[in-house]
């Protein structure tokens, strides 16, 4: 993949990610989030992870964003009133973030093998969906069942927490 395409998507992802955390309007944030994640999905595809890229778009653009937007509309959230900047909070947070990024860069650059080109891979004979599917049902059956339980608990929880009058 051409580096230029990679950098475009990275910039898209990070730019809209930044927009998520700086925009005053929650709707803008939610939409930026989706664009950021679509760019992220493109990066997945660029790494050959087609299945992950697809479910990324399906889950985030299809479900999560709708959920966020729906809730924002439901609660009728408006643009945040411009408040005076809280200097200590912002500066403190910024310093923490800058320190974290510094540590992260140090770690990334020290990581051996990070600077070389990716090793060559062949295309999976049955495509990666087949491979992942087989592995999930063959080796990762237990986590799959746990995730099933998790979703059950989550759906019960959502009902409990939001139904107006429980039975």
């Amino acid at each position, binding site marked *: 993949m051409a580096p230029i395409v990679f950098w475009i998507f990275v910039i898209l992802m990070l730019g809209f990610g930044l927009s998520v955390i700086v925009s005053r309007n929650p709707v803008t944030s939610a939409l930026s989030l989706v664009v950021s994640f679509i760019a992220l999905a493109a990066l997945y595809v660029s790494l050959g992870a087609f299945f992950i890229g697809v479910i990324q778009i399906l889950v985030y653009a299809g479900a999560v964003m709708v959920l966020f937007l729906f809730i924002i509309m439901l609660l009728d959230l408006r643009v945040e009133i411009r408040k005076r900047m809280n200097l200590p909070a912002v500066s403190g947070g910024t310093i923490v973030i800058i320190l974290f990024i510094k*540590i992260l860069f*140090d*770690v990334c650059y*020290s*990581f*051996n093998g990070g600077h070389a080109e990716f090793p060559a891979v062949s295309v999976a004979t049955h495509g990666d969906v087949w491979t992942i599917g087989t592995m999930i049902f063959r*080796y*990762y059956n*237990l*986590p799959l*069942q*746990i*995730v099933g*339980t*998790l979703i*059950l*608990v*989550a759906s*019960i*929880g959502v009902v*409990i*927490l939001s139904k*107006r*009058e*429980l*039975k």
Partner: protein
Amino acid sequence: MSFPPALLELLVLCLGLALLLVESFTEKQDRTLLAYIGMVGLGVIFLILQLLPPGPTGMASYVFDPVAIFFKKFVVLTTIIVLIMSVDYATTIQRFVPGISSQAGLGEFFAIPILTCAGMMWMASAIDFILIFVSLELVTISFYVLVAFMRRNASSLEAGVKYLILSAFSTGFFAYGAAWIFGVTGNTNLVRIQQVLPALGAENYSAILFGALLVLVGLGFKIAAAPFQFWVPDVYQGAPTPITAFLSVGSKAVGFIVLLRVVQAFQSLPPVGDKVVAALIILAAATLIYGNLAALPQTNLKRLLAYSSIGHAGYLLMAVAGISARDSGQAVVIYLAAYLLMTLLSFLILIIVSNYADGDEIVNFNGLSQRSPLLAFGLLVAMMSLAGVPFTAGFLGKFLVFKVAYESQQFVLLALGIITVGCGFYYYLKVVRAMYWQSAASNGATIPVSGLSFATIVLLVLFTFLLGIFPQMATGLLR
């Protein structure tokens, strides 16, 4: 034995599902019946666990070793007692959950802890980051629901939101750390990681350490280690009390088993393992200081227990930091067993008394010794044990932890531990003083205790003493 151990969690899961089904298809049944079914079912699971020998499971990511068995028994027992508490707490739940019928939502309140229990049991066996992650999340998400369960109670909701945000925050760190560990070692399985680590080049040490520390942060949140413990007092205070007990015992215990397994895996590479231990020492010291000092000015018993739970996390971390000593794991296990007894005992009595006195401030316990000698004695034993008075389980736990710290030459931690025990005496005795020295408030009638709670209190008190007087019993916990 032909009984596959992995079936146990599925049985617990089925139990939870069965309760949910019964809940939805019956109309007039008394909902507390569900709790009793749950207790009996979990009791059967406990018996099976008692009989199953440790052995291979045929799965790479799932082990059934003595430690796993201990923790499974531990969480099953905790869940049973939490259900007992929930029955006592049902009136409060009904008050704060909107519903058509008077018992709306109760069925779910009894069923979700059983599903959580299944998640904790999976965590006890998990040695693969994927399995750890999903079971950890199952536990976490059920706690989101349970903490915020009383949705007409603003405190419960506030606690729910605080837990939600901070927990998701810690999950982010955990997942990122696990990603890095995978990136460096090419494995998500702890056993495999332990095997490949010694061959790791020195230039990758900071990368693997970065991953390990972030995983530590994620687990540090679960076990309430400073500085990742800020949620604890608020959430413990706001959550329904049985859930607080569940959080402080079950959630913390499974956090510790994962922590133990991860730290153990990293010991195969001393340069990294030592730094992980150094991080644990820092966390332990911070946790000890914070938990014990901040507890001093507390006037609310529930909040006091929250700080005390942070303090105990500090002692447990001391034991984990002493991983180089032979008995480190054993000390953690015995300390947790003692912690289960005394913490659940305090919460159970707290629920009964605060139901009656309508408040969980320490002043609500004034003169309890006259109103209800049994409850006062039970709480006295719990406080003594939490403080670490000899001949109680808590003393044994602290003794072993200090021994481990001594053997692994963590003298600074040892000194800190001994000093903070002194602080502990002060704030635990505050409760005792209220019960025995202060005279009762206007409401001087005796407090009614249900038969089941009565039996539970007696058993917990009994075991607190038995464990303290016959420590050999405790060493048998890990067959």
